[in-house]
């Protein structure tokens, strides 16, 4: 399978939990803006916890859809590692941005 097709599939999978994940990331950024670095550890653990919940929810309620990706050659481990990695990168990037913009 061609690279753009793989990216398209990964984004489709990411979209299945993006609407849950984005508000969490935004709330974390907001809290970081308010309270600063003392709560960084708490925010990181909170984000990881919600990622764990997402993983469990999708694995339970959308497990049928994994056959779609498998039939196209995308293993579950690749789907999860790329999308959760992307999600975490977005979270870190937003916190860095918040840190830099904060007066």
């Amino acid at each position: 399978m061609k690279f753009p097709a793989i990216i398209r599939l990964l984004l489709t999978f990411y979209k299945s939990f993006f609407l849950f994940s984005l508000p969490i990331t935004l709330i974390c950024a907001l809290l970081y803006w308010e309270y600063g670095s003392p709560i960084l550890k708490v925010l990181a653990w909170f984000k990881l916890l919600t990622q764990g919940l997402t993983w469990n929810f999708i694995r339970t309620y959308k497990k049928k859809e994994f056959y779609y990706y498998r039939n196209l050659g995308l293993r579950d481990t690749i789907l999860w590692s790329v999308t959760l990695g992307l999600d975490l990168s977005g979270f870190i990037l937003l916190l860095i941005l918040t840190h830099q913009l904060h007066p």
Partner: protein
Amino acid sequence: MTHTLTAKDIRLKFGDRPILSDIHIQCHTGRITGLLGRNGTGKTSLMRIIYGDLPCDSRTVTLDDSRTINLDDSRTQNNIPLPRPYTQPDRIRYMPQFNFVPGSLTPERICRDFNLDIRGLESAFPEFHTLRRQHIRELSTGQRRLINIYIITRSSSQFVMLDEPFTLLSPIQIEKVKAILEEEKQNKGILITDHLHQHIWDVSDEVYTLADGRTRITSPPTPKSRML
């Protein structure tokens, strides 16, 4: 060139209850292999074990593919073990008995993902002319099923396994699916199971029956035996 998919030495238990114990099944390219059995005999489990996504006590699944074997090599048995076929869609694809396509996708997008021409789907099933940009979740159960069958059967692969393809379809749609299977068996091997036995007999070149954890090659029922 003919390829053979062999599944044997498969053992599966649910708790203390043995489900599969003496399995030997072969599927050849250019042929349709039927699999029959009552509810709960393990047909779906067997397909999932062949596909590699259901753990079991023991499992041997091999693919005879002499093209990829170096004759100077001592491994000239032509049998390539397939520990995780679900990672090799060019060898095996599997259609489960439920809709597996994400609801947010459209028939057009699905065909693109599977490298298929949407016009092929539309000419086989004209109702999709107006549905090509419709989300899958908005389609009827039968239409979803048709898409599932079409993409798995038509996409390029050496073998496909279809779990209950005829269920949920109308008689006209079933006839169309049978025609597609007949056409596609020229390019691949097809393993198929369904509760609608007559359709399995109609399309299959050989039929296995799964009972008491064992597979046996079965002859078609004669008109006389059907009356009994």
